C-alpha cells in the first residue's frame, strides 16, 4: 500500500520535475563503495558534521531565551542556566559542542593532511573544507562574546585587537568588527547576527558542496596521484564496502561514542558562566579561546606587523596547499618531508598554546612559586612554605 502510494507520487513528480535524475544520482552516490583502507580516523569529518547539527538544535533552544543586548545578555544566559527547564543542558551542549566541533574539525584537517587527501583531483574539496574551517572558527569567535561575561568580553577585546594590527586595513577591520571604538552593545548585535544568521547559511552552502564533492570523487586512495583511481566496480572487487549502510553505520558508532563522552564532560565538568562583563575592569591573564591560543601567543613574540603578515602567509600557504604540494605520493610513509613538517607544525602549535595557557599565571613548582609573564617566561617570586592559611572561622576582616 505505502509502496504503491510512494511509487505513484514518484511518477507524478517525475512527470513534472524529473526527480528521477536526482534520485538516481543520489542512489548511485550512496551505494558507491568506499576503499578498504578507511579506518576510524576517516570518521572525523562526519563527527564534525554531527556536531554542527547538534549546535543547530541546541542553538535554536538557546535563542528562545537569549537576549542580544549588553544590558540583558548575561542575565538571560544566567536565566537559561538556572531557571529554564533543561536550559543548563542546552547551554552545556552548545558550549561543549562548540569545543568538540572545533577539536574534531582540526583532527579532520590533520587526517586529510597526513593521508594526502587534498591532492589532485580533490583540490576543490580542500578549498571548501578550508572555507569551512574559517567559518567554524568565526562561529567560535562570535559565539564566545554572546554570554557577555568577563572572559568573553576581554577575550573578544584582545581578539579584535589582533585584527587591528593588519597593515593598511587594520583600523577599518577593527571598527567593522566592533562597530565602534570599543566592544559594546553594537558589537554584540552584529556578532549575534553573524552567529545565528550569516554564518549558518554560509556553512550550509559550503558543507553541501564539500560533501557532494567527496561523494562524487570518492575518498582518496592510498596510491599516489600518478596511479589512475579505481572505478566503483574495481573498488568493490578490491574489498571496498558500500558507503550506505556499512560505512554510515561505522560513522554512527563513532558519533555515538563521542556524544557519550561529551555527556560525561557535561555532568562532571560543566562549563561555568563567569562574572558579568565590566568594560572598566580588565582582569589579569586575558586570553582567547584555546583554538586561538597558539596564534595569539606567537604574535606576542613577533613585532606586530611582521607577526600579522607572517601568520597571514602561513594561513594562505595552508589554504593553497594542494596547489604548491604537487608531489604524487599519498601514503604518509612515502612522503617523509611533508609528514615530519606536519608533525613539527602540530608540536609547535601545542607548545605555543601551552605557553599561552601558563602566561600571566602563578604556579608552585618544587616548593618555589613562579610567576609566568605574558611570554610564558617564569620568574621566581618567593620560596615560602605556604602563604597565609585559609579563612577558617570568620572572625577576620570587616567585609
Amino acid at each position, binding site marked *: 500500500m505505502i509502496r504503491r502510494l510512494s511509487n505513484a507520487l514518484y511518477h507524478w513528480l517525475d512527470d513534472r520535475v524529473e526527480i528521477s535524475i536526482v534520485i538516481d544520482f543520489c542512489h548511485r552516490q550512496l551505494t558507491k563503495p568506499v576503499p578498504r583502507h578507511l579506518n576510524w580516523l576517516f570518521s572525523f569529518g562526519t563527527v564534525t558534521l554531527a556536531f554542527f547539527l547538534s549546535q543547530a538544535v541546541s542553538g535554536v533552544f538557546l535563542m528562545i531565551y537569549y537576549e542580544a543586548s549588553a544590558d540583558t545578555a548575561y542575565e538571560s544566559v544566567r536565566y537559561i542556566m538556572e531557571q529554564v527547564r533543561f536550559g543548563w543542558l542546552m547551554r552545556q551542549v552548545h558550549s561543549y559542542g562548540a569545543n568538540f566541533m572545533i577539536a574534531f574539525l582540526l583532527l579532520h584537517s590533520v587526517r586529510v593532511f597526513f593521508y594526502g587527501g587534498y591532492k589532485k583531483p580533490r583540490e576543490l574539496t580542500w578549498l571548501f573544507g578550508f572555507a569551512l574551517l574559517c567559518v567554524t572558527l568565526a562561529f567560535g569567535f562570535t559565539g564566545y562574546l554572546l554570554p557577555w561575561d568577563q572572559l568573553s568580553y576581554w577575550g573578544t577585546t584582545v581578539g579584535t*585587537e589582533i585584527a587591528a594590527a593588519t597593515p593598511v586595513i587594520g583600523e577599518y577591520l577593527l571598527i567593522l568588527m566592533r562597530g565602534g571604538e570599543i566592544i559594546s552593545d553594537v558589537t554584540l548585535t552584529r556578532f549575534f547576527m553573524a552567529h545565528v544568521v550569516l554564518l549558518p547559511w554560509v556553512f550550509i552552502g559550503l558543507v553541501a558542496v564539500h560533501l557532494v564533492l567527496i561523494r562524487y570523487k570518492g575518498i582518496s586512495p592510498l596510491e599516489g596521484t600518478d596511479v589512475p583511481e579505481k572505478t566503483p566496480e574495481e573498488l568493490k572487487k578490491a574489498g571496498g564496502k558500500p558507503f550506505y549502510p556499512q560505512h554510515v553505520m561505522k560513522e554512527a558508532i563513532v558519533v*555515538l*561514542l563521542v556524544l*557519550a563522552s561529551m555527556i560525561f564532560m557535561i*555532568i562532571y565538568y560543566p562549563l561555568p558562566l563567569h562574572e558579568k562583563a565590566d568594560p572598566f575592569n580588565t582582569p589579569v591573564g586575558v586570553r582567547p579561546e584555546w583554538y586561538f591560543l597558539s596564534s595569539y601567543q606567537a604574535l606576542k613574540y613577533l613585532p606586530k606587523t611582521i607577526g600579522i603578515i607572517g601568520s597571514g602567509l602561513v594561513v594562505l600557504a595552508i589554504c593553497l596547499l594542494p596547489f604548491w604540494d604537487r608531489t604524487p605520493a599519498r601514503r604518509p610513509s612515502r612522503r617523509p618531508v611533508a609528514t615530519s613538517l606536519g608533525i613539527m607544525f602540530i608540536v609547535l602549535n601545542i607548545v605555543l598554546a601551552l*605557553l599561552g595557557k601558563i602566561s600571566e599565571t602563578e604556579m608552585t613548582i618544587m616548593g618555589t612559586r613562579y610567576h609566568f609573564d605574558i611570554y*610564558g617566561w617564569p620568574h621566581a617570586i618567593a620560596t615560602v*612554605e605556604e602563604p597565609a592559611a585559609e579563612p*577558617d572561622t570568620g572572625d577576620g576582616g570587616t567585609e
Partner: protein
Amino acid sequence: MSELTHAGYRPGAGAWNALSARTAEYTARSAVILLLLLVWTPAGSATAQQAVTTNTCVSCHADLDDEDMSLPVAEWQRSAHRPADIACQDCHGGNPASMVEDEAHDVERDFVGLPDPYVVHELCGECHQVQMENYVPSPHGLEGDFWPNCVDCHENHEVVFPRASLISIPDNCEDCHEQEIMDDFIALTDRGLEPVNEFRRAAEEIRSAGVPVDLILAQASLARDAYIQQASHVFVLDKMTAVVDSLEQVYPRIQKEVNTARTEVDTRRRFGWMFIGLFLVLAGVIWLYRRALPED
C-alpha cells in the same frame, strides 16, 4: 565616550606597543623556554628574583643583622596582611618610600617603633571596626585594661586568618581562665561557625557541578555576618550562646537548600549516565548489526 575609549581600548594598544619594543630580548628568551619546556625542567634559580614590593621598610629591614629587626619582615611576608596590601607603615607610621633611615623613621610622619598597647585596638579597628566595637566594652577591653589586645592573640607581624585554635594558645588564656571555660568557648565558636564553613564548602562543590548556589552562599554570609556582629570579640559566654542558639534555628533551612542542590546534581548525573548507557548500547547494536550484514 572618550572615557570609555580609555578604559576599553587603549590599554590593549599600550600592551601591543610594549610587545614590539621588547621583541628581540624575548625572542631569545622564548627560545630558551621552549627548550626548557621540552625537557620539562622547572626553570628556576637562574631567573631573577622579582622584587615583590618597593616598600623601603621591607627592603632595608630584611637585610638587618639584628634578628629582632629583620624577623618581622619574614613574618609579615607570611601574613594575611601582605596579600591585602597592609604593610609596616600602616601600623608603625614613617615613610616607606625613603631610603634614608632618618626620613623613613620620621616622627613627624607618626613613626613609632613600638605602638602603645593601649591603642593597638584602635589601629586594627581602622579596618576591623566591628571587631573593635565588640572588643572595647568586653571583659578584655576597658574592663580588662585592654588585656589581651588584638596582637596578643592574632600576632603582630604574622597575622593569620583567625581560627578556633588560636583561642587556646597556652600563654594567652590560661593565666586567667580555667581550661573548662576555654573548651566551652571553643565549642561554642565551632557550633556557631563550623556549619557556615560546611555550607560554603558544599556550595563550592555544587557550583562546580553546574547547579546554582547563590542563595546558599548569600544565606551563609548573612549567618556569618550575624555571628561576627553579635558574637565575635564579645567574650561573654551567655551573650554568645544566645546568638549561636538563634543561628542554629536558621542552619537547618540552609542545610535544606544544600540538600536540594545536591539532589539536583545527583539527578543530572544519573540522567547523564542513562544517556551515556543508551548511546553505548546503540553503538553496540549498530556494530553487531553491521557485522551481520551480508559481505556483498
